[in-house]
């Protein structure tokens, strides 16, 4: 799960975010601790803590003194909004680049997506 390249703390933050987005980590529920994350992903606890602190700074998690970190109310909506705004850059851009290389027009691509949707 932890890959080469890219800061690990960001990857840790992204994994926690994924759990919030897909609903497995509900709002107001307790997030895994930095030590739990470190043990699970076999990474340095300081790195895991950095990932969690990033999420606190982003308002996705909040701290309860002496208890741990919890998912902030509205966190899922906030993450969905951000991920939607990043979607074009992260997924559409490489898709378009490859399509252009192969001579597939934007219209053909749209038709392809429609067919794919129908087939499911």
């Amino acid at each position: 799960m932890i890959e080469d390249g890219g800061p690990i703390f960001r990857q840790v933050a992204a994994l926690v975010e994924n759990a919030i987005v897909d609903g497995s980590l509900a709002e107001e529920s307790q997030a895994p601790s930095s030590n739990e994350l470190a043990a699970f992903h076999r990474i340095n606890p300081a790195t895991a803590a950095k990932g969690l602190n990033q999420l606190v700074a982003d308002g996705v998690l909040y701290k309860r003194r002496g208890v741990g970190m919890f998912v902030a109310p509205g966190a899922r909506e906030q993450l969905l909004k951000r991920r939607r705004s990043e979607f074009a850059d992260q997924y559409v851009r490489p898709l378009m680049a490859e399509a252009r290389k192969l001579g597939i027009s934007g219209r053909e691509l749209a038709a392809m997506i429609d067919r794919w949707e129908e087939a499911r």
Partner: protein
Amino acid sequence: MTAAAAVHDVTMWFRGHTALDSVSTAFEADAITGLLGRNGAGKTTLMQLLTGHRLPTRGRVEVFGATPYEDDAVLARVCFVKEGQRYPDQFRVRDALGAAATVFPGWDADLAADLVRDFDLPLRRPVKKLSRGMVSAVGIVIGLASRAPLTLFDEPYLGLDAVARRLFYDRLLADYAAHPRTVIVSTHLIEEVGDLLERVVLLDTGRVALDADAESLRTSAVTVTGPTAEVQAFARRHELLHLESLGGHSRAVVRSRADDVPAGLAVEPTSLQQLVVALSLRGHTVPAPAAAPDDLEEVPR
């Protein structure tokens, strides 16, 4: 950074050979630092200096604010798990652990018992009858259960199988998380250990080649592949660490962020291991392999 241990301009000469050459570095308190480098780079010598096993030819060694050499107060807080540690001939496993229990004030007997079970160590067997891997496991048990404020592991995994190494990493992380302390691990298994490290010190022929945050190193270099002219143009604008060419194509390890790479070049992240190899090979040219027979033109008879 608060340093638990440091060397200041340390040089170590052995007969006609400089093991460490004006080395200055500090080991951050309560962090896990990886001490990396090729065989003969000076890792073990540096650890011997930090643990008071040797005096430097020149320079100053500082551990918890004092000189470790012959200072019992400092050495009681230091545990050095040596590569190929020897024990007295008649020692059984339980004697080795018993001796460690008397030496280290922070010894945790319950943890030691857990680890003995983890590694399937036979307590009554003489240490000299143990396999290589089991002797390594005894060292790991002592290193972890000592809870020493400064714990050094010098290639602690020799002879250990993949399962036992995994156990070591997991137990180290768990116990370090519960009881933070300064840990220095020398290792060649960078791929396995890299993610556990907070800091990295790379030695190359007795000098410090790298002394940095492990996290920042992961994003400090990229591997780019593409037409040689473009790769070289890109490398000229940054620091080139390693270059290999085949035909008109080249692959280069370059100190750069991924977002600086021009569109025409394929870019891959550079792992800690790749970075260490590239830095250790800097200045060496890798000879191109001879063309395979099927690349040769057929000679008309």
